[in-house]
């Protein structure tokens, strides 16, 4: 007999280990945001409202380069395009929930809640909507407070960190660390390499527009390699 309590706690258990990854990441965001001139309240509001680490880092980096607002928003939203993919693949499972709950699911859709939930839904095909929702919010329960709490910690200690720590390089290292482990297939590696080459080649474009154009060309390159590998039967 399935209860809603058990999927919730299963989700909680699946989400809890990710706190270990979020602690340094959100602390770093707090620190970098403070270094860029954001107040504690501003950094915390950003984490609460945006709830997307990579996009937040992107926005802070570009704002401190004095890039026009429109470009800052466009670049950060481009980084977040993957959330639309998460939304699409959660829809068959959670699309039947009332709209208020779906909005709440949307707010809590981040890399970890998405990845854990989709894996659990595939492993438990007998789950009904109630159990699926319970599991999803179970994963989100430890993650969101950790994200906000350690943004706060980071922004409180950020102001005390001296310039000799070279924190300007925290964002590049963090992004490399996020991307390198997920370069699983040739398509992923081609997407990354093409994006890097195009970004360097288009660095002359004003307002960091080259970054956005290079990102889209990289995406197209990855998608094209995948399409060819599927056609040849070498895609696993």
């Amino acid at each position, binding site marked *: 007999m399935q209860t809603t309590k058990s999927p919730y706690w299963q989700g909680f258990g699946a989400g809890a280990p990710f706190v270990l990854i979020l602690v340094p990441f959100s602390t770093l965001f707090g620190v970098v945001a403070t270094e860029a001139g954001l107040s504690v309240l501003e950094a915390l509001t950003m984490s609460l*409202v945006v709830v997307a680490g990579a996009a937040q880092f992107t*926005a802070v980096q570009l704002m401190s*380069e004095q890039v026009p607002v429109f470009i800052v928003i466009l670049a950060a939203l481009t980084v977040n*395009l993957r959330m639309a993919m998460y939304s699409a693949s959660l829809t068959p499972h959670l699309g039947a929930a009332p709209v208020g709950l779906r909005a709440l699911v949307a707010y809590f859709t981040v890399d970890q809640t998405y990845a854990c939930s989709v894996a659990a839904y595939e492993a438990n095909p007998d789950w009904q909507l109630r159990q699926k929702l319970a599991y999803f919010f179970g994963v989100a329960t430890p993650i969101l407070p950790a994200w906000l709490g350690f943004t706060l910690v980071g922004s409180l200690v950020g102001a005390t960190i001296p310039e000799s720590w070279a924190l300007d390089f925290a964002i590049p*290292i963090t992004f490399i660390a996020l991307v390198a482990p997920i370069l699983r297939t040739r398509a992923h590696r081609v997407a990354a390499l093409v994006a890097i080459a195009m*970004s360097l080649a288009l660095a002359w474009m004003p307002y960091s527009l080259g970054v*956005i154009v290079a990102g889209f060309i990289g995406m197209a390159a*990855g998608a094209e390699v995948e399409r060819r590998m599927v056609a040849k039967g070498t895609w696993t």
Partner: protein
Amino acid sequence: MIDQSTLWTVIISLGLGSFALRFVFLGVVGNRPLPDWLLRHLRYTAVAVLPALIAPLVLWPPATGGETDPARLLAAFAAIAVGLWTRNVIGAIVAGAAMLYLGLYLLG
């Protein structure tokens, strides 16, 4: 220093925009299937956009006035190597930071 009105414009627009991206299919499109080509492109957003964003920062860091810096370059390579090898995010951050400080200490 970041201008206050810029900052709040970015926070609010980014919050609304990010929510819209998360809600678009779940809330609006419903159970209709998505075209394969769209999903295929969306799969590569993170691995394309993030490297595009930082490649110029690695090669021409604003902190050194755009001058290529051996310590920062080595740190980037250390993070890439450890990330590819161990598939561990925190391990790659630690390796990159360690190499950065070692490089700054020895070369700086």
